[in-house]
């Protein structure tokens, strides 16, 4: 390395071409790298990738399943991205999802008398408020007492998870089956299935509407302007008359509420019960999605869809070719790492210079 140094500079203006090219290239690189462990697993990588794509997008069933996975991922991704926009580091989407699911299920189990057009909106409100309330606690602690929200939101996930478990193993255990799950929710609160014979439910539309709302908030509203300003420089924002504390609390509530809607979707669209394993970690994946999507609404939609394809596809590959399940997770990891590195190059310029 004598005589040369590698310097990394932030790009003043990100290049549009690179913003599209980098993720595509990253995915290609990831597929090339992943070919090595797939071959070692005794499977022809081409065949493996065919199964991956077919299993995620190839027929009606796989496509609708991918969308059923896409919906909670998108909601969690938007939830995290919205909070991160004003630098409220919400790592608690998972707990907010559970809280939203719990409150919505409590409403839905007892909503027997209500017709669906009334029950479903009310259930959405209940889930939103549940998730929002759980996110409001760390936000108030941050604003009033300067408690680090990374810690409180993260730990809150476990508090909520065990709270849900305690309720489901205790007072709310399903009386019919004895399983640690809530009684079945009222039929009027089932999300309508939009593609017959699949699990393509109303929640998928809800999540897309939320993503559109996030776009409008950021690009068209006063509030979005304020969130961007706070995220850029809270001190300047305060000096210019933005009520920073108030907006952060509001953003946390909306963020938690959106994560809560992911919980509603799992309860009313997939399981029809409140369950202890409502989410395999959608809330945590939401953090990755928000970052990969660059906190940008369109980016978050694309990242969520990619994530859903990768998860569904690698599972299918595992089933079809017999590569170990662990390998599916390795491939997911490789794709994410490559994407993050690719995104790094859209923001920074790396150069060799003479020392």
């Amino acid at each position, binding site marked *: 390395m004598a005589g040369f140094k590698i310097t990394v500079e932030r790009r003043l203006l990100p290049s549009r071409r690179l913003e599209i090219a980098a993720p595509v290239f990253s995915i290609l690189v990831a597929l090339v790298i992943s070919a090595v462990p797939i071959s070692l697993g005794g499977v022809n990588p081409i065949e493996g990738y065919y199964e991956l794509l077919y299993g995620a997008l190839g027929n009606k069933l796989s496509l609708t399943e991918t969308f059923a996975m896409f919906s909670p991922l998108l909601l969690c991704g938007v939830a995290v991205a919205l909070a991160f926009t004003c630098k409220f580091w919400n790592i608690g989407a998972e707990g907010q999802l559970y809280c939203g699911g719990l409150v919505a299920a409590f409403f839905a189990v007892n909503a027997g008398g209500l017709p669906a057009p009334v029950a479903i909106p009310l259930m959405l409100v209940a889930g939103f408020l549940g998730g929002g309330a759980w996110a409001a606690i760390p936000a108030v602690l941050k604003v009033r007492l300067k408690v680090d929200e990374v810690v409180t939101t993260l730990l809150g996930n476990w508090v909520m998870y065990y709270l849900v478990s305690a309720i489901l193993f205790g007072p709310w255990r399903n009386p019919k089956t004895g399983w640690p799950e809530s009684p079945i929710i009222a039929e009027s609160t089932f999300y309508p299935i939009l593609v017959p014979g699949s699990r393509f439910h109303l929640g998928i539309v809800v999540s897309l509407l939320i993503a559109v709302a996030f776009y409008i908030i950021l690009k068209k509203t*006063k509030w979005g302007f304020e969130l961007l300003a706070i995220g850029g420089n809270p001190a300047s924002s305060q000096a210019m008359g933005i009520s920073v504390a108030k907006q952060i609390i509001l953003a946390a509530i909306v963020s938690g509420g959106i994560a809560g809607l992911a919980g509603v979707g799992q309860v009313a669209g997939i399981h029809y019960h409140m369950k202890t394993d409502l989410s395999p970690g959608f809330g945590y994946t939401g953090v990755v999605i928000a970052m990969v999507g660059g906190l940008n609404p369109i980016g978050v939609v694309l990242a969520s869809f990619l994530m859903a394809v990768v998860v569904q596809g690698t599972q299918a590959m595992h089933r079809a070719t017999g590569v170990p399940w662990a390998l599916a997770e390795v491939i997911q990891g490789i794709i994410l790492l490559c994407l993050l590195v690719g995104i790094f190059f859209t923001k920074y310029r790396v150069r060799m210079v003479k020392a």
Partner: protein
Amino acid sequence: MIEVAADAQTQPNVIEMRGIVKTFPGVVANDHVDFSLQKGEIHALLGENGAGKSTLMNVLYGLYRPDSGEIRVNGTAVTFDSPRDAIALKIGMIHQHFMLVQAMSVTDNVILGLHTQGVLIGEKTAENKITELAERYGLKVDPKNFIWQLSVGEQQRVEILKALYREANVLILDEPTAVLTPPETRDLFTILRKMRSEGRSIVYISHKLEEVMNVSDSITVLRAGKVVANVKKAKTSKAELARLMVGREVIFRLSKTEAKIGTPVLEVERLSASNDMKMPALRNVSFAVREGEILGIAGVSGNGQRELAEVLVGLRRATGGRFAIGGQEVTTATPRTIVDMNVGFIPEDRVGLGLVMGLPILSNAIMKRYRDLSKGLLLDYSVASDYAGGLIKEFDVKTPNMRYPTKTLSGGNLQRLILARELAREPRLLIAAQPTRGLDVGATEYIRSKILEQRSLGRAILLISEDLDEILSLSDRIAVIYEGEIVGVVPAEGANVEEIGLMMAGSKRMELAS
């Protein structure tokens, strides 16, 4: 430099820095700076915030690599890749923010990073050596204590011990008394004199004249990245140093119209406030600013100016007293209320408090108007961009595209952008802090003429500046601030510069009629 060379025969220079240039994006922090340090002297590096003192010493300590220039230690040219190289040449530095590990003991902190220690025996030997050093220099610290148990003054002593333990012959202290109480400051000076008597050399970075005159042997004054003087303590005075620091030569000839003074807009009564370290920074300050008038607050930086501005815009709570804008008391108002009362604010820290650098220029231009540019919840970006475009044109902010991030602008254009945003609202009160600091001649002149234009429009202006020339050429009245107190108010017309200099240095105080 010829005299220095002659001097060197009797007392060799431990450190010799020549032609040091260090630039940061948009700023020349050190502009061909020469600096030499003799054996056994306390050498003060005096200058205002941003004059380049810390930068110069960070270059000497190996934290920054200079763009050009030469460093000699004991006559040998050296280049430093990191502080490790500087430490090896027995140079130590104590930063304003201490570099200590809170969860470790004093001993562990002192020996941290040294490789010469054995694992088990080292600790005890080190502890003994620290105790011995502490006794020799009167540095009262228990080596067994943990850092988090220590007061700020004690932590500073640990930093000094760290340097002494590494046998530093040159010790750089960056604003060491900013965090100390007066008795701790006295103790520190005793320690420094003791070190000097052993032939060690000390660089003392400060903007406090009192201390510099108290403790140093020679003084180098920096202004805007350049050396403006190198004097012996015995041959100078506080008043002279104050003038050297802030500059006096009148460069600009601005046409100033006859003042048309109206009713008071800002009335401040016995206002007090604390700084970030919770030490009193502003004490019982009273004044009024009237329509069509510029009240200049003169003083050396760090005397409460920043706190004053922050209290007046609602960013910092007053600890005593009150103030009113347009007759309405707003002592406990939020920044939002004060913005809504149409108060313009040009902050001292433009990037930290005046702009959001990552957002487009357009966004920053509308930052105080976006609520008026909205219909209901929606912000009308087409109206907003017309508005921003108009401002950028009127105030000649040079940018290829107002959708570019604000950080692409140069320093002068950043200030034009802030000025545009603040003046477009036709503020009834403008609080301008260091409005031209660090700007080039053209931008400086433009901004000063804009401030005068506001005055002729009948607006009240509070001008806080360390630049005495600026204060003299713009103000109608001048209030001098020293250690958080207004020590005198004089009309700018026929003001006596010597007298103001003395007041800024704390050597003279006017009886205020109140």
